[in-house]
């Protein structure tokens, strides 16, 4: 029984580690292929220069053209909050 456990553990280890490597190798290959295809055939005119600073400009763009119903409330709340905040700071 105990040795069974040991051998089952070994099997699971081999298999699991093997599968992790196979899967991630596949991912490396498909990712590289995908990047190559996109950079070759579907380049963007203005790629974003750095990956970390990217959240901000996108959010900017996104919020710059919202449907009018969606953002008025948020704007109102934040606007009022900022307004009061400034007053208080003075």
């Amino acid at each position, binding site marked *: 029984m*105990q*040795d069974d*456990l*040991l051998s*089952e*553990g*070994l099997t*699971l*280890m081999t*298999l*699991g*580690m093997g*599968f*992790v*490597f196979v*899967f*991630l*190798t*596949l*991912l*490396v290959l*498909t*990712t*590289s292929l*995908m*990047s190559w295809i*996109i*950079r070759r055939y*579907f*380049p*963007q005119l203005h*790629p*974003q*220069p*750095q*990956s*970390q600073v*990217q*959240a901000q400009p*996108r*959010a900017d*763009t*996104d*919020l710059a053209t919202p449907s009018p119903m*969606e953002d008025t409330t948020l704007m109102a709340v934040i606007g009022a909050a900022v307004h009061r905040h400034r007053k208080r700071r003075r």
Partner: protein
Amino acid sequence: MDNVMTLWYGSGLYNLSLGQAVMIGVGLLLLWLAMVKKFEPLLLVPIGFGGILANIPEAGLALSAAEQAVHMGTADVLQQMAEALNVALPSGESLEAWRQSIATVLEDGASPALTRAANDVAMDAGYAHGMLYQFYRVAIASGVAPLVIFMGVGGLTDFGPLLANPRTLFLGAAAQFGIFATLMGAVVLTNVGWMDFTLTQAAAIGIIGGADGPTSIYVSSILAPELLGAIAVASYSYMALVPLIQPPIMRRLTTRRERSIVMTQLRPVSQREKIVFPLMLLLLVVLFLPDAAPLLGMFCFGNLMRECGVVERLSSTSQNALINIVTIFLGLSVGSKLMADRFLAVETLGILGLGMVAFAIGTACGILMAKLLNLISKTPINPLIGSAGVSAVPMAARVSNKVGLESNPHNFLLMHAMGPNVAGVIGSAVAAGVMIKYLG
């Protein structure tokens, strides 16, 4: 006077067991680690507090109605419950023995139908599910909370560095050896006779080596719910200890020259690549490992919402209000598994010990894989970023950066280390999928 005595007999002081006192101490210790030592406070504050609540004597906050009835019910209630559960109660024995035999049946997993019947009897007798028990059912037993958190983590993840240098996925793969080494460790401890883990439990323990809180909780909620408390505590504690555990190993396994390797600047990654990547990862999961679909599916979903740029509202909520709400209840629910009679076992020590080993092995394997890649490839990789493959985002990447700066104060490895760091998240989820496939 009788009434005053009722208060006293029902008080915590009268009923406090040694184990509960110890566990309340453990809860306070976790809070101290979280608040003073800043050990993953977002999780350890709720877990520690939940642990205290779960060990309040007589309150039964972490127990189902049936479990409370078993602990506190009259002989009459016990007989009804035994009937509902098809348990024979030998008439000669003490009430305590009856409680024991019913409790054993309930804990060892009566069928859903029988459990429901037992709860019906208990509720009819006036007992109700404890608060933490309800949180646990909704948040963890259903599997939902870790998945929703994983969605939020996906939204917080930037795959840019990984896409700029896909080879770093190998580092994330190698570091998962910590998972399987830990599994073997648990198996060996059982074989030697020091502990008593099943293969399923060993697998759940192994996932601690993935250094990924939600993944650990998700896997152990499926494979070994009875160990979930210890596994989650070990998982988050060691993630917080990454800055202490990793550097000595990193220094021992690398030469000064290797640590000074300057890596080539990462290329800019277009938004299109970032949008396609989560979908591609999802398709690979669909084709090769359906069992990882809940975890990686939600992760990819969160990331796609982040990158696609048209659902900013949803993405923002999933990274803020939603993940915060779920974290509160996930933490309290994990705390419900810190009940004295289940947590205070020698197995917990084994889990804590193995978790530490897992992190060390994962770190080492990540570094060694980086050195191996350097042997077979021209583009140099600083082996220090290999340790980030254990995930523990973003702590491990910061450690790589910090140790790198020691050797070369102008060599910033942070962004390079983010590649293996997020690769480690994918790697552990894949390993989790394999475990669930075989043992779930």
